[in-house]
């Protein structure tokens, strides 16, 4: 108990630090925090803050605080202590201002998060997921280190401000090489398709509070890194970078949400939605780059605000949903949608908050997801004016892709909330207890209030973000004044209508009758299931999802009267299938390298000495 309190206190302390730093930077602009000198100048550690880090720090503060509150009564003590260190490492990434400091903090973040993913290491699938995660994280960091040092060597300094100042003078091929490398490195961390493969494996097996931090904040650290490089360290970005980022974002958004819609494990489904939302953020970032390359700084500002706003919003509602899923897992013992049902009656506090999260992530008014997705659309359309026709087509393809994504996300969360929380419980043994209000509900409530506040009054977030974007692109973003009233107007009449129903029901009464089931008894089994709900989408998008159906009949008195039918569907997914083949090829080649690893200490010492001699020989 004491360990848990220590962990929560530690996490809250980190959250407080992040909040203070965010506030200071928002007011004062660039802040230098100090330098740890090193005998090798390339390895010196600079710390400081730039406006770009502010939304990320604010998100870190909010989510860490909520996760801490959630963990007061629920978490395993060791997890929350680790989460404190995890938050600290992410804070380190945001305050790093030299290559060595950034890489150090980044590695700390990756390793601590790997421990969190491995929390239930007694399970085989958890160990596999951790291994996959570590492989992607380490391969990614190699790319990131290479890219940062390429830029640092060319600029002649490892300090970020100096590198930013010199970025414009570097040759384009060199910057493009760095761009390709960071796209691989940060893209794999953020879960951009096709580098997302680790994400839906690692996020769901972590404890719920860790998943909230991983999906809510850590993916955004990768977005921060990407922004840092493409907007500052390797700026200005040529048009092609913007188009590449935009296309990657669109593909990630569509593929992520398609995977989610046919998945029925609540936590894995949420992880796929992280791929989708990272895609949406990346779309906005791509628009910002395209507009900057076309010399349209005002539109770039709008797009950047949209990207940062959606970054914050996704962190909030995804943390809310993951923490809610944690409560579901605790009370029901499962997150399989096919076994859940009727939670609305028992989780009386969790359910309404979870509903707000669902509406927000589906991008519907008047919540925050709508505000930032609407801004993303606006930036896509505004960017049309300034570009060549070919890029216009790409932008409009992204509009269509984003619209498809929105529709699929709405379908998916109708499935999640309708199947798991509404209707009737699918398990007769589940207890009919109402949950009491506790700290974890408070955490959910806090996040739900923030989702609503940023939706109803988006200017709360947009005004400071616009100042940050202006500092980065150099021009104040246009077209923002219409935003503050928009979500309210869009939802005023619908919610008045909903209240009208409540009022009418109170005055005229509503009679309760059994559900009409054509005369057969009303049972939970008659309800539509998640698999059935997703069936039409699975059929329509079969060319991407590659669904497989396995059916086994246990013969009864004859083939036509089976005593039992087992039915299973699985999706293999085109992208994952391609990735699997690619990995198989790599594994075949790495088998050749296996001969080098004998496990013998003497052999390794020989390697070390040989490397040393080789280095000395090359240097002289």
């Amino acid at each position, binding site marked *: 108990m004491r360990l848990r309190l220590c962990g929560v206190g530690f996490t809250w302390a980190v959250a407080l630090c992040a909040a203070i730093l965010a506030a200071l930077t928002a007011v004062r602009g660039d802040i230098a925090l100090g330098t740890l000198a090193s005998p090798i100048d390339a390895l010196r550690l600079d710390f400081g803050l730039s406006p770009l880090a502010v939304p990320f720090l604010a998100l870190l503060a909010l989510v860490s605080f909520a996760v801490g509150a959630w963990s007061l009564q629920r978490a395993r003590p060791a997890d929350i202590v680790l989460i404190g260190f995890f938050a600290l490492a992410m804070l380190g990434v945001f305050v790093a201002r030299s290559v060595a400091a950034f890489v150090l903090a980044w590695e700390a973040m990756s390793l601590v998060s790997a421990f969190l993913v491995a929390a239930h290491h007694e399970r085989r699938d958890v160990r596999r997921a951790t291994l996959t995660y570590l492989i992607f994280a380490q391969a990614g960091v190699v790319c990131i280190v290479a890219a940062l040092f390429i830029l640092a060597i060319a600029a002649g300094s490892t300090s970020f401000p100096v590198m930013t100042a010199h970025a414009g003078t570097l040759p384009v091929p060199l910057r493009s090489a760095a761009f390709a490398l960071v796209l691989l490195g940060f893209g794999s961390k953020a879960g951009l398709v096709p580098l997302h493969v680790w994400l839906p494996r690692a996020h769901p097996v972590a404890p719920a509070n860790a998943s909230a931090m991983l999906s809510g904040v850590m993916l955004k650290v990768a977005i921060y890194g990407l922004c840092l490089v493409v907007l500052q360290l390797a700026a200005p970005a040529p048009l092609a970078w913007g188009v590449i980022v935009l296309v990657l974002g669109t593909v990630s958004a569509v593929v992520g949400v398609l995977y989610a819609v046919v998945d029925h494990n609540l936590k894995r489904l949420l992880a796929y939605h992280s791929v989708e939302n990272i895609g949406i953020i990346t779309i906005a970032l791509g628009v910002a780059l395209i507009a900057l390359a076309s010399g349209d700084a005002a539109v770039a500002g709008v797009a950047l605000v949209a990207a940062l706003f959606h970054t914050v919003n996704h962190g909030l509602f995804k943390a809310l949903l993951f923490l809610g899923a944690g409560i579901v897992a605790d009370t029901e013992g499962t997150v399989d949608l096919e076994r859940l049902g009727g939670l609305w009656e028992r989780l009386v506090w969790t359910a309404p908050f979870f*509903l707000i999260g669902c509406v927000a992530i589906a*991008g*519907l008014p008047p919540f925050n997801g709508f505000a930032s997705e609407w801004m993303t659309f606006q930036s896509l359309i505004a960017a049309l004016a300034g570009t060549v026709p070919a890029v216009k087509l790409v932008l409009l393809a992204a509009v269509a892709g984003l619209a498809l994504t929105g529709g699929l996300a709405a379908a998916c969360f109708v499935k999640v909330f309708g199947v798991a929380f*509404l209707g009737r419980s699918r398990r007769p043994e589940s207890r009919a207890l109402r949950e009491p209000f506790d700290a974890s509900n408070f955490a959910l409530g806090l996040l739900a209030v923030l989702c609503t506040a940023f939706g109803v009054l988006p200017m709360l977030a947009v005004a400071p973000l616009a100042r940050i974007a202006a500092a980065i692109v150099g021009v104040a973003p246009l077209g923002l004044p219409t935003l503050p009233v928009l979500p309210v107007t869009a939802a005023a009449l*619908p919610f008045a209508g909903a209240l009208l129903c409540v009022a009418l029901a109170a005055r005229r009464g509503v009679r309760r009758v059994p559900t009409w089931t054509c005369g057969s008894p009303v049972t939970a089994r008659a309800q*539509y299931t998640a698999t059935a709900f997703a069936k039409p989408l699975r059929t*329509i998008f079969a060319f991407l999802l590659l669904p497989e159906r396995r059916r086994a009949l246990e013969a009864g008195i004859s083939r036509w009267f089976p005593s039992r039918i087992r039915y299973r569907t699985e999706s293999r997914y085109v992208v994952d299938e391609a990735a699997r083949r690619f990995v198989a090829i790599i594994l075949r080649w790495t088998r050749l390298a296996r001969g080098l690893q004998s496990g013998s200490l003497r052999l390794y010492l020989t390697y070390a000495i040989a490397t040393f001699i080789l280095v000395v020989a090359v240097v002289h």
Partner: protein
Amino acid sequence: MLVFVQVLVIAALAPLLQGAMKQLRARLQGRPGPNPIQPYRDLAKLWSKEALLPDGTSIVTLCAPGLAFGVALTFAAVLPLTAQAVPVIDVVALAFLLALGRFALSLAALDTRNAFTGMAASREMTFATLVEPTLLLALLGGAILGHGTALESLLGVAFGPASMLAFAAFFLVMLLETARIPLDNQETHYELTMMHEGLTLEYSGWQLALVGLGSYVRQLSFFVLAAMLLLPGGGMLVWIAVIIGLAVAIALVETLFAKLRLFEVPQVLTTAFILAATSVALRIFGAAA
């Protein structure tokens, strides 16, 4: 103020459009058909009756009809017919708004524990995902030409091949959104054909009246928008003529075509998407040339 008049007029005329189309279709099929004012009678009767709800359903089910009704009224309010009072709801927000109504009704459908409504919710949400990209591309004609995303931007577009393609795409989408044969069927809510109607199977009394009036208002609003897409510079009288033309056309379509199999509906929607995308491409390269 004008905007209230606009909403009231649309809400007052919407049931008439429904009744007239039903009467016309009946005549085309050689039946006498109901009186065109029958929808008003139905609504009045339903409004006076008590509402029944399935045991154990949540407040979501209670509120969904009102929410969907509010969405329909907002749709009617933002049409650029009169001087605009609510210009902040643009094309993009409109698409999200329609999705909100659908979201609420579909959640309610899953809440009722009825397999039919659940099935309808699944189909409704599935086809909505295919409709949304088409709807946006068809309505973004003005935005591509640089008039912004407000609904008035539609009125600044010239009549031409691109606008006709956008209209054709919108017409196909509208058939689904207003639950018309060959994509859906308003007359039944049972398994093989149902989508929209099945969704609200468990509603009754004043709640069903709200659902009904809401869908009539949505239908007329879609017709108005279609008229504006076809003849942007038309003006009120021309648009009314187009709306009457559309009503006749849809009655003919409903008489001449049979309901499509469910999994053939995506093909129609894909066709609509291709039409909308072609219109967009024409606009982009037309503007460039």
